């Protein structure tokens, strides 16, 4: 069974509905660690050594966050900048992450239609997430198809639909663990 690390980034958890539910649902799984970045590092003072140790002892890394300005919240970017050091994540001797899996799990306000070439945002989600895909590639990780929840704005008031998505997320993670 694979050990999953959810690196979670949400700057205003108290206002979240969907992400909170997703996290709660994931938390019920075995051998899965939830790492809440904004709770751990409110002042952005990331403990690089600690983070690297966490990465070492897990097989599948999940970046879970709400999609902001076509990317992740800023602390996750800071985390990437600091933690994925030369000699650890990449470079000649940087093989700590090689062979691990990377999954992006995110939620967007707009519907799936707007994330099309003909749509309002002009690019697909897969394209917006290219930097993560390239990061995975540089670190020798296998990049999994992203888990995306669209239309978060409409979903907010629908408890049942949120629960459905949360269950889907849990199933998805469970499948990753056992495959």
């Amino acid at each position: 069974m694979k050990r999953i690390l959810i690196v979670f980034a949400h700057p205003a958890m108290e206002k979240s509905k969907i992400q909170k539910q997703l996290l709660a649902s994931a938390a019920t799984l075995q051998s899965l660690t939830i790492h809440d970045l904004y709770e751990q590092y409110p002042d952005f003072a990331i403990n690089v050594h600690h983070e690297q140790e966490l990465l070492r002892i897990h097989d599948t890394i999940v970046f879970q966050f709400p999609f902001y300005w076509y990317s992740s919240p800023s602390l996750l970017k800071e985390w990437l900048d600091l933690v994925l050091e030369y000699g650890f994540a990449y470079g000649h001797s940087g093989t700590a992450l090689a062979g691990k899996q990377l999954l992006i799990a995110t939620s967007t306000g707009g519907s799936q239609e707007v994330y099309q070439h003909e749509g309002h945002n002009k690019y697909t989600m897969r394209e917006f997430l290219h930097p993560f895909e390239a990061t995975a590639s540089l670190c020798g990780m296998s990049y999994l198809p992203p888990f995306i929840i669209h239309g978060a704005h409409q979903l907010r008031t629908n408890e049942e639909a949120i629960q459905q998505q949360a269950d889907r997320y849990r199933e998805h993670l469970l499948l990753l663990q056992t495959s």
Partner: protein
Amino acid sequence: MQNFLWEAFVYLAATVLVVPFAKHFRIGAAVGYLIAGIIIGPYLLKLVGSERETVLRFAEFGLVMVLFLEGLQLQPTVLWNLRRSIFGMGSAQLTLSTIAIGTLAWACGLTWQTSILLGSILSLSSSAITMQALEERGHEKTAVGQSSFSVLLFQDLAAIPLLAIFPLLLIQRTHSIQESHGTSTHPAWLQAILIICIMGAIVASGKYLLRPIFRFIARLRSRELFTATALVLIIAITLIMELTGIPPALGAFLAGVVLANNEYRYELEADIEPFKGLLVGLFFVSVGACLNFGAVINAPALTASIVLALILLKIVTLFIVGRIFNLSLTENFLFSISLAQGSEFAFVFFSFSANAIGLPENIASLLNAAVALSMLFSPLFVHMQQYFLNRVTPTHSQNKEFAPLPLQEHPVIIAGFGRFGQIVGRFLRANNIGCTILELNADTVFTLEKFDQKAFYGDATRVDLLESAGIAKAKVFIIAIDEAEKCTELATLIKKLYPHLHIMARAYDVIHAHELHEAGADIIERETFSSSLDLGIEALRALGFRAHFATRAARLFRKHDEKAVREMASIEKMETYVSLAKRRARELEKLLQRDNTKNDSDIDKAWDLAAQRSTPTEPTT
């Protein structure tokens, strides 16, 4: 002297012997006191004699204190939060009940003025008995508890005109009687002006005179002196009031209201509470001892019907009020039966101004006895009511939560509102977190007042003070006192008595931080550490470093320092025999040594590829 000691012995011994029984049978301490009084009185054991009237006069002073304390509770915020039930239910109850009882009195042949006055006096219920009965059954916070509290509060407010102004209206009519009795030598209009002037004087002195006096006394930091001052204040009011023929309770109540928003409120409350308890007990004992059973025995049928009429009329009117204000049926039963007894004010009234309004003496003493009997029966009725309700509806929902009690139950208590506590308090307030503040420095409290910050004067290591500040309901206790030893002492005390609290403490230095840790504080902050480090950042920037670098360097230093301090804590214990100054010097030395060995090069590693490549992290497989 011996006589006095004997009397004191009889009164206290009766209380000590009877009240535990009262507690055991859940009939309430007040009723226990009454029974104790009756037992030692002239109709049973004959242990007390002619002095009992004197004792009663003395014990009435207990009621003066009760009213002072009740006045203290009357903060504008409490009134506002409960305005609907206080003014709605309270006035409805008083009006209905006055009409009902007054009509009966009028029908019995009394004049309409006397009837109205009698009706309103008998409409009042006993706070001592009701609130205790409800608290014993855990009802203080339920709809019933809050409704009863509101009604009783309104009755207290109404007692002002009842005890003072109404008799005035009747003085005209009974002028001749009064002069022959010699209770008041002033004509009515002069009396009225006098009352208004004195009320004004109390309000004015409460605002402008008492505060500086309390501030001065508080600065001397002598608890006994503060208690003495509080007693002097109440006794002075009583004396002045008696001179002018106004009930002293009224003046004390007014003084209490004036001081309700004062920063010394909690301290006053805690200081007077024990005196009040004892004197109120004494009051009920002497009421019991003074009961005129002769009158009762001469007219048993009349007494019985008066008592019954009183209780029934009260229950019916209270029930109607409860109905109007949406109490459920079971709640309404408890509410109307709990409040269906005469008030302790009635005793004061009957002995104070009964003949002033032309009430015959024998009727007055009958009514007095009737009120006492209604009190005695009150717990019995409540028991019966509970019993029947439990039989009929075993799962009645009496614990419905009422709107939360206003204020004084803040989640945070801050002890010490000086330079440190102020910042914490202001920050929490800015985020809409209510704080109850306890501060010992009278000057600080005064200064804060000028800047619209509310702080209460009081020593935070006093348990009674902590209780009245609402510590049982608090979640976080912040210790921000200046004196290091006092901080540790307080942390130990809180940890022992209120283990549910999250204790956060301000530490003077590293050594003090260790002591606080030992005492059980959960979060400890060294008072100068963060600000010193911030200044360090500014120093680096002034020397040309980028702000981001300086800030990151400070973060790293903080981590390093916290680790060093933690590690030193274990070594610290072995060196407790060394003098404080020496320990400080050694600590500094150790810290400096550690600073030398630390590696700062990783501050900018993330954004400096060259640095990363030159010091590669351990390769892993």
